């Protein structure tokens, strides 16, 4: 396949940056999107141009680092992560525009790499349960109802990739927040800190500069883990409950 790539190049956070066009030949349909970029970078290395910086780690869809906006869609046209996206999803001769996640809470570090530590700070604000260290507790001593456990497991698949923020017209992180709130809130272990958790995580979300949710639903369509919109309803319900309890 031959491709025309329009890629966001930006030296550093202060640089204005801009789209630069590259022609790339010899791309196989079986390559992943990131392998295609590897090929491009080899070509750039040969010509002495600085390779395109992009984030990646596991390349198997579980770490959430491969954040790329591909032709206006977070992680491209399929419901998966960029590392699990293959070039067969594109056509020979196609022009593909590749941009970093755009959100002021995710500032660009370089080229396509953004600083997503805002998510880490949201998790640190309350996305955990407090447990004593020592010998592991007896697993069967805290029963979790099956349907609740299933819901918790389903939304615990959120990998914190930030595609929901990237796709949201308001730059809101509500789907991510909702996934974490629902995951911990459905389980018995999550109950003691439930009100404080949602209050702190929402406050951190707002302080990071993410926008408010308008329930449009672009987030869930972009989510590689298909986190459903009902986690946002759950988030709202938990916050409403926390307010009633004096938070």
């Amino acid at each position: 396949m031959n491709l025309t790539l329009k890629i966001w190049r930006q030296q550093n956070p202060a640089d204005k940056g801009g789209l630069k066009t590259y022609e790339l030949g010899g791309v196989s349909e079986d390559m992943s999107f990131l392998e295609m970029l590897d090929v491009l970078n080899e070509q750039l290395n040969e010509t002495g141009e600085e390779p395109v910086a992009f984030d990646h780690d596991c390349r198997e869809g579980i770490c959430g680092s491969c954040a790329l906006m591909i032709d206006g869609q977070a992680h491209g046209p399929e419901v998966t992560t960029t590392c699990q996206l293959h070039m067969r999803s594109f056509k020979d001769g196609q022009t593909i525009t590749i941009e970093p996640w755009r959100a002021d809470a995710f500032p660009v570090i370089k080229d396509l790499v953004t600083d997503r530590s805002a998510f880490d700070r949201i998790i640190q604000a309350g996305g955990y349960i407090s447990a004593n260290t020592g010998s592991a507790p007896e697993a069967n001593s805290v029963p979790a109802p099956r349907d609740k456990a299933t819901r918790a497991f389903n939304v615990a698949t959120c990998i914190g990739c930030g595609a929901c923020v990237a796709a949201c017209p308001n730059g809101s992180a509500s789907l991510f927040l909702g996934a974490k709130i629902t995951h911990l809130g459905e389980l018995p272990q999550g109950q003691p800190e439930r009100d404080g958790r949602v209050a702190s995580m929402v406050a951190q979300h707002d302080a990071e500069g993410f926008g408010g949710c308008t329930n449009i639903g672009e987030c869930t369509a972009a989510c590689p883990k298909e986190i459903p919109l009902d986690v946002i309803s759950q988030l709202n319900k938990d916050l409403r409950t926390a307010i009633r309890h004096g938070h």
Partner: protein
Amino acid sequence: MATVTAVKNKRSSRSTIALKLLMALSGLIFIGYVLAHMYGNLKAFSGQEAFDSYAEHLRTIGEPLLPYSGLLWIIRIVLLVALAVHVYAAYTLWARAGKARTTKYAVTKRVNSTWSSKTMRWGGTALLLFIVFHILHFTLRVVTPGSNSDSPYERLVGSFEIWWVSAIYLVAMAALAMHLRHGTWSAAQTLGLTNTASARRNANLLGYLLAVVIAGGYSLIPVFVLAGVIS
């Protein structure tokens, strides 16, 4: 380990979600009101006598416990407060969304947004302008196209016989239908009532139902005046 920057204002009642809750609650007040208001307006189909005496009846409800027009004033104050809250929250969150993404994408592809969800802010602004016009027209009688009779029925018929007055009202009802379509669903989400797939489907269906019933119901009046059925 990275340290957490202390958040200045931790009150949940000051959060973006709290603003949305205010918007949902004020929106529900509006929905209740537009339903009741529509019931009254449809009395136009029963003729001048029924319509005008209903308008007068609204002013005498609760007498002598309430003064003349007392209930009407209570409703007006509740609506004004709800409007102030709704509009304040809407524009605050709009500004916030703008600041959340100051560098725009070169290419965007929306795959899951309904038209009504994309027009909430500009459509809401259109509704705000319409509300101002509507009050100047029928309540304050500052603009009185067609008729400035003391009979509400004659003012209604007189103005809707003018095509552009009817057009303004019909366009506003289209905007209201759109706003209610997404607003009903969004309010259900905001209030945390849609935690299952079927609840989400029902909230969406209710949005369509309210949009069609309310905007359709109001629209009957200018349409039937123009057709000469109400005269």
